[in-house]
């Protein structure tokens, strides 16, 4: 029987891994520059970490990979982590909450969500950053800048930034007279991308229908748009007023940073733990990342109430967009080395010198020159001990020692 991949999971071949590492490295370098420290959380977590009311949507929870561990006789299930932020928040509560400083955490991780179609997307990779313990507009702006700078460092110059605000949407829903449960359900459906929720509501409450329609169907491109909306809604409710103030402060900073953006209230992601700004990034019409503020999550998970925000960049999608030509090692940098067994020590010395000079040195098996190499080096016990052939020109040189050989190869 032919060995088969698990349905819904994919390999990353050498070229795909090069792309993956390119995205990962660009993100990590950018995050380091912003003072973010890399962490890693386990693949398995307890299911209850994700079932706390208000963490993941019911739709998402139905698709988690849950099972009983080898010591799961209590009947409590574990999951392959379906989300990266919640484990990072758990790590913060367990290890960092008592430090009294904002925690800047970054990670590269996989998450697992069942997808019935069974493509290759049941395992997803993302780069993520979480800023826990800081709750101001500058914190929001820092994360948005970090995400955008990461894309730039990946070589993705053309992207769009769409911003929304969960607190403002909730305040609007609350103003429509929805009960907490209805509000929750409507918000879940909205975050799952179901715009019909609003169609129903506007029919019920015609007084605010126009304002809601404008809010949802217009893409704003300035702080002025938010101020206009604020005028249309009755912002006497404290939640509404504070949400507008919060969102305007964030947008002002984004604008001041010179970033292009759109205000798009329907921009959501399948999570319900957001409380403040939400952003999504698109490149070539593909959603390549997003995040937002989740000020209640740490408290809901048993920690002290803590402001927090974060984002994820989707490596699987970004990998397809990055240019990796610069990462290919040219043939002239690749050396095939044929070492006679009795000359192994000398051969290893030569290989070591070349590798230090950042050449790729491949062993020639059975005397066959390794593929895609620009140089063929032979190391023998008898004379001549060292020889090198430039495979592009066919020219062969006899070398007196390793350094001479390295110089010839190094100078091309």
């Amino acid at each position, binding site marked *: *029987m032919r060995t088969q991949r698990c349905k819904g999971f994919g390999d990353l071949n050498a070229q795909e891994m090069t792309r993956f590492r390119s995205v990962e490295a660009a993100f990590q370098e950018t995050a380091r520059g912003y003072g973010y420290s890399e962490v890693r959380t386990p693949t398995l977590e307890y299911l209850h970490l994700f079932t*706390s009311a208000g963490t993941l949507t019911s739709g998402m929870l139905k698709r988690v990979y849950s099972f009983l561990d*080898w*010591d*799961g*006789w209590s009947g409590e*299930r574990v999951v392959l982590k379906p989300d990266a932020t919640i484990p990072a928040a758990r790590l913060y509560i367990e290890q960092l909450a008592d430090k009294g400083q904002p925690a800047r955490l970054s990670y590269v991780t996989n998450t697992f969500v069942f997808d019935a179609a069974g493509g290759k997307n049941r395992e997803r990779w993302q780069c993520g950053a979480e800023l826990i313990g800081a709750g101001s507009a500058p914190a929001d702006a820092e994360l948005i800048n970090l995400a955008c700078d990461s894309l730039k460092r990946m070589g993705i110059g053309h992207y769009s930034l769409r911003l929304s605000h969960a607190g403002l949407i909730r305040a609007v829903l609350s103003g429509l007279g929805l009960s907490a449960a209805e509000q929750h359900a409507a918000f879940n459906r909205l975050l799952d991308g179901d715009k019909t929720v609003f169609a129903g509501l506007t029919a019920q409450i015609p007084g605010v229908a126009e304002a809601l329609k404008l809010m949802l169907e217009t893409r704003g491109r300035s702080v002025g748009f938010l101020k206009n909306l604020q005028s249309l809604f009755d912002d006497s409710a404290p939640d509404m007023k504070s949400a507008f103030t919060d969102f305007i402060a964030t947008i002002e900073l984004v604008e001041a940073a010179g970033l292009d953006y759109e205000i798009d209230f329907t921009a959501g992601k399948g999570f319900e733990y957001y409380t403040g700004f939400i952003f999504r990034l698109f490149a070539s019409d593909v959603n390549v990342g997003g995040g937002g503020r989740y000020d209640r999550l740490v408290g809901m998970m048993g920690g002290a109430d803590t402001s927090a925000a974060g984002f994820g960049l989707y490596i699987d999608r970004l990998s397809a967009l990055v240019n990796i030509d610069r990462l290919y090692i040219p043939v002239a940098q690749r050396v095939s080395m044929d070492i006679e067994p009795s000359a192994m020590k000398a051969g290893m010395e030569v290989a070591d010198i070349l590798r230090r000079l950042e050449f790729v040195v491949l062993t020639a098996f059975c005397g066959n020159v390794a593929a895609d190499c620009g140089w063929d080096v032979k190391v023998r016990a008898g004379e001549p001990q060292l020889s090198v052939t430039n495979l592009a020109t066919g020219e062969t040189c006899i070398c007196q020692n390793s350094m001479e050989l390295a110089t010839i190869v190094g100078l091309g």
Partner: protein
Amino acid sequence: MNLRVALPKGRLLAPTAALLDKAGWGLEDYSEKARLYRLKSHIYPELTAKMFQEKDIPIQVAIGNYDMGVCGLDWLAEYTARFPSTELCLLRELGYGEGAVYAAAPPGLIADGVITTSGENVRIASEYPNLAESLALALRLRRFSIYPVWGAADAYPPENAEIVLLSRRSEAEIASAGLVSLGMLKTARACLIVNRKSLSKKDLSPLLDSLKGTAAAGDSSADIFNLTALAQRKRTLSEGDASVVRLALPDGHQQAHVRKILDAAGVMIEEYPSTTGVRRPKSSLEGFAITVIRPQDMPLQVAAGNFDLAITGRDWLTDHHYQFPGSPVKELLDLKYGRVRIVAVVANEVLADTTAELSDLRQREGGACRIAAEYVNIADYYARTNRLGAYRIVPTWGATEAYIPEDADVLVENTETGSTIARHNLKIIETLFESTACIIGSTRESQSAVKTTRIDAFVELMRRTMDVMG
């Protein structure tokens, strides 16, 4: 073209037989008195049918062993709750089969959107573990434990479960079990199910046409459960609770054996076995609370700390240990009755007389090996450690010997004498181990010295009794 249909035993047999008779399928042997599980039609020569436990039918149709099947909507829902992208789909409701799956809780446990628990987790016991998990997620329970049980779920609350999912004919039956219904989760009416690939590739129309006009108006969406999130609150255990030894005794055919031993030990016990379904019999054992549950479910219950002692079989203890190698459950005393061998079985025609030969054969022939078993963890361990290559465990709820050859290649089964196996043209290729009834307990230290003394005294009493009984 061969058409294969899986038909139910049990509660749906008589109305299904009547329906198929009316539809003219010609399955005359399909009756309560059927001696063979395999059925042939004298009207449709291409039709073969087989009788299964109702809950086995969705699995059999989903994996493609059968093109169509008849089962309750509850078992269809239980299967699809776990495997939403299954090849299994509902063709039509059949309009008969009483009852539904209800969620229920002890009176007073849920009030004002808060459920009171005795531990960190809300414990849900059910024969429908997948529906139970869906319910827990829908109720947004923060922490929960699902106890899959083979039966007697109503025996668990309030001490050993906060919520149960039960199949009952009406809410009145829930009330008569001393529970409060939280609502109906799924109707248990009969339905016709089909494998999607069969539907797309085979001509099933003669059978489907014959059923035209027989289906009653169904309402499979009658899930009237009003789901609102439940908060959790942990209650404090009293000292009195902590010293009581919770003893699980088996229901079913083991009861007579256990009663004999208890009588010999001088333990008075009322209504065990019970003709009225009493699940908490009174006894002369001071400081003991006895509950009667299925022996299959006992190891997990002891491991989870819901019971301190239980009388079960070593087969079920071993199955539990293969699933949970670090489990704190251990055998305390061999009761030496109910001796069976747990064996691996293949058809007589298979060219293998040992597991090693079977392993070689599987490697030569390739393809996935289907292993049917009630003991799914023993079967899994057996296949894994003996390198049977690609294999699938087909869980069954009885009558496993009828699975070979069409629905399974190997069985992991228990046998007393081997005669049933031989009668089905099967052969034993390995005896995995011998099993007898035993008392099991936990290696975890009890918080109560009084309880520990009571446990030790009970086991010692049973040991002395066994010595006297020889």
